[in-house]
């Protein structure tokens, strides 16, 4: 039976056609992957499924009946639920309170907490999830938060689950757990729609793949009858080479560019989260930092980018002490940053693309004279970078908030790389970015390496760390627990170190 069927579904934003006559069918109890580049129209399509926006023309049939959703609540009532990329959870509430939010079980005027916990525990065991209903959501990992979102939908008796780039924020281990959950959900008869551009996941769990490019369906194949190369080709329109080949280098005689000595800091609770970290980066070297999320990598990056204060230790650039400098001072010294959370630290959502593309460099001579911004110069840079970095935007004068996640990331990459820095601190540079752009970012990073820049690469994608880094350090509980040569690193070796086994 077809649970979802669309007939010539079209969505226009003004003159821009986001979805162009989409015709698709989704089988009950199957896992369908919808893939496409950033801005191809996947999210627009799903928003129509979920009642967040209305189609301009065409029809959507759920279980054979014409659906006309006015809000997500209508969609949920119809058995269709969505797990968003950015979770809609309340951090101050517990797991069970979040799951039952809006449908609380009451006894008289009061909430029946005991019964709520029992209900949620039942649900957790039924779907074999690992969760404690009484934990506060602010204290649990990102993977666990996602499980809360899934349960929120399952509690509302949803049969069709849409996942919007669910693995973009997960660690490799959490991805495996999520894929396992998908199989379990499928076994229980749920239909899953997976929006993603990660080929590995698609090949591993999906039954069918629908490829969208520029708002149109360009491919619809059984997963068993295709391969990653063919899919990547369909999505990008050409062959994609992600296997990075880099020139072998001997660093023993290269100059030390960036040096960190015994760096230490603690969090609000007084716990040491970065513990005695020392490393150096030589000219033209890429130093990878990996570890399970929450082992001090974020804090290390915050320290190095001037967002956090150290308790002990020193940082040197070219032998000059730059410890404790603020981000603008660091940028002037020749550092560039790609922050972990692009919206929290990298971009200002409510400001224009041109403002964002010079942010951090706005007081330099290039864009500013006598305290006034040179608008012409800024517009010129903006247009150059949009073209050069292939940033897809419908309106050049528009705000950053109108860009898709991957394109927003490209804005940061364009800004930081264009500044011609000596050292780049890159945290999760390809998180949530499509494969074509990943290829591009890798190429750019390697170009900088060739130019003799120093690069610190922090990433939770092991394959990324392994293929790019010359040397890899592994963090566990705030300490460096091991150093591995980039050439000889294996997933197993890094995995053990990440788990704290020396």
């Amino acid at each position, binding site marked *: 039976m077809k649970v979802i069927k669309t007939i010539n579904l079209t969505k226009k934003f003004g003159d821009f056609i986001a979805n162009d006559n989409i015709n698709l069918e989704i089988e009950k109890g199957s896992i369908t992957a919808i893939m496409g580049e950033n801005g191809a129209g996947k999210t627009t399509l799903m928003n129509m499924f979920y009642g967040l926006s209305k189609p301009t023309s065409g029809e959507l049939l759920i279980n054979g009946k014409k659906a006309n959703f006015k809000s997500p609540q209508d969609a949920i009532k119809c058995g269709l639920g969505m797990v968003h990329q950015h979770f809609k959870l309340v951090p101050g509430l517990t797991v069970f309170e979040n799951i039952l*939010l809006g449908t609380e079980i009451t006894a008289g005027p009061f909430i029946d907490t005991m019964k709520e916990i029992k209900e949620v525990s039942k649900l957790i065991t039924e779907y074999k999830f690992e969760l404690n209903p009484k934990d506060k959501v602010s204290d649990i990992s990102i993977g666990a938060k996602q499980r809360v979102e899934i349960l929120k939908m399952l509690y509302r008796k949803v049969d069709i689950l849409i996942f919007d780039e669910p693995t973009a924020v997960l660690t490799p281990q959490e991805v495996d757990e999520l894929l396992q959950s998908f199989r379990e959900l499928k076994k229980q008869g749920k239909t899953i729609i997976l929006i993603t551009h990660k080929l590995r996941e698609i090949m591993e769990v999906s039954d069918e793949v629908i490829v969208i490019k520029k708002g149109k369906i360009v491919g619809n194949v059984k997963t068993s009858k295709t391969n990653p190369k063919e899919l990547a080709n369909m999505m990008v329109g050409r062959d994609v080479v992600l296997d990075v080949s880099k020139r072998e280098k001997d660093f023993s005689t290269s100059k030390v560019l960036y040096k960190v000595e015994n760096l230490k800091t603690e969090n*609000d609770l007084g716990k040491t989260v970065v513990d005695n970290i020392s490393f150096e980066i030589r000219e033209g070297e890429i130093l990878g930092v990996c570890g399970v999320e929450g082992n001090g990598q974020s804090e290390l990056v915050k320290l190095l980018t001037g*967002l956090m204060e150290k308790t002990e230790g020193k940082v040197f650039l070219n032998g000059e002490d730059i410890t404790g400098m603020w981000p603008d001072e660091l940028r002037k010294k020749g550092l560039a940053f790609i922050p972990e959370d692009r919206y929290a630290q990298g971009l200002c959502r409510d400001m224009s693309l041109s403002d964002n593309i010079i942010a951090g460099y706005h007081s330099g001579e290039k864009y500013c004279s006598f305290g006034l911004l040179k608008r012409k110069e800024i517009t010129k840079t903006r247009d150059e970078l949009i073209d050069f970095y292939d940033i897809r935007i419908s309106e050049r004068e528009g705000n950053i908030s109108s860009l898709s996640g991957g394109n927003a990331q490209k804005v940061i990459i364009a800004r930081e790389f264009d500044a011609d820095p000596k050292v780049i601190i890159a945290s999760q540079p390809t998180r949530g970015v499509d494969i074509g752009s990943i290829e591009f970012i890798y190429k750019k990073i390697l170009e900088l390496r060739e130019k003799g820049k120093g690069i610190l690469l922090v990433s939770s994608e092991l394959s990324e760390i392994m293929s790019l880094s010359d040397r890899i350090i592994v963090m566990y509980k705030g300490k460096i627990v091991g150093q591995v040569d980039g050439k000889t690193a294996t997933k197993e070796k890094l995995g053990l170190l990440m788990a704290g086994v020396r």
Partner: protein
Amino acid sequence: MSLINNILYDTVYHSAPLILLVLGGIFAYKANVLNIALEGMMLLGAFSSAYFVLITKSLLWGIIVGVILTLILGLIFSYFSVTLKSNFIITGLGINMFTLALSGFLLQFFSIPNINVSSIVSTANLKIDIPFLKDIPIIAPILSGHTFLTYFSFVCIFLAGVLMFKTKFGTYVRVVGENEEAAKSVGIKSDRIKYLAVLIGAFLCALAGANLSVERTALYTNNMTAGRGFIAIAAIYCGRGMPVKSTLYATVFGLTKSLSINLALNAGPVSGLFETVPYVMMVIVLGVVSAIESRRTKLR
């Protein structure tokens, strides 16, 4: 001994309206619409209840009309700041200035220096002695012999705690404040929650005003709230909107008010200076509390 007794009795006496204000403010605070108009709402409550006691010749009807008028003011505030999405700080500021100007104007208009309702309301008769409690030495002169709204304000601490943490409404208030998107995504009507949170505030502000004017002194004088609404906001901030913690800070301010009044009696020519104590205290407490909270933060 009697000085200490007086100080403690007055602490309860002066804390009561502050507690009502704080409890009125925490729901809006938790729902992320900081109600800076507590001051103005209290002033309207004080003015209108006194005036309508004079008109209706009835304490109860005067207070009821005062409450209704303040609720209407609360509706105006929420209509502007929630429905029309104007900046609620500016809106609140406007309401504070409006009520102060209106009450001052009306006094001028009626050509009276203040509203005296002592012929209708006998403040001595409004003091309630609590059975059993009134016979216990030491405590009796402090806790007994207060007015109804004073006792009610302390009961409200408990009621507000239950409402905030044990009911759907309280949960929704916190959810709307913490993550409005999450609330909307499960179909919670967040605007309605914000309206209710502000209206609870308006209701309690009106009672605080009535307590201050008619119930305690049977007299309304111009601008008699004297910044209590802002002291309450400071208490809410220090207590992070938690009912018990915030009211504890309210009593700290009640204590300083009581100290300033009782000590000023013996201070001679500098007695006027003592009136600044609660306000100076407010600045100090706010500074200390936030310094303690950010002490460990290494984030810039």
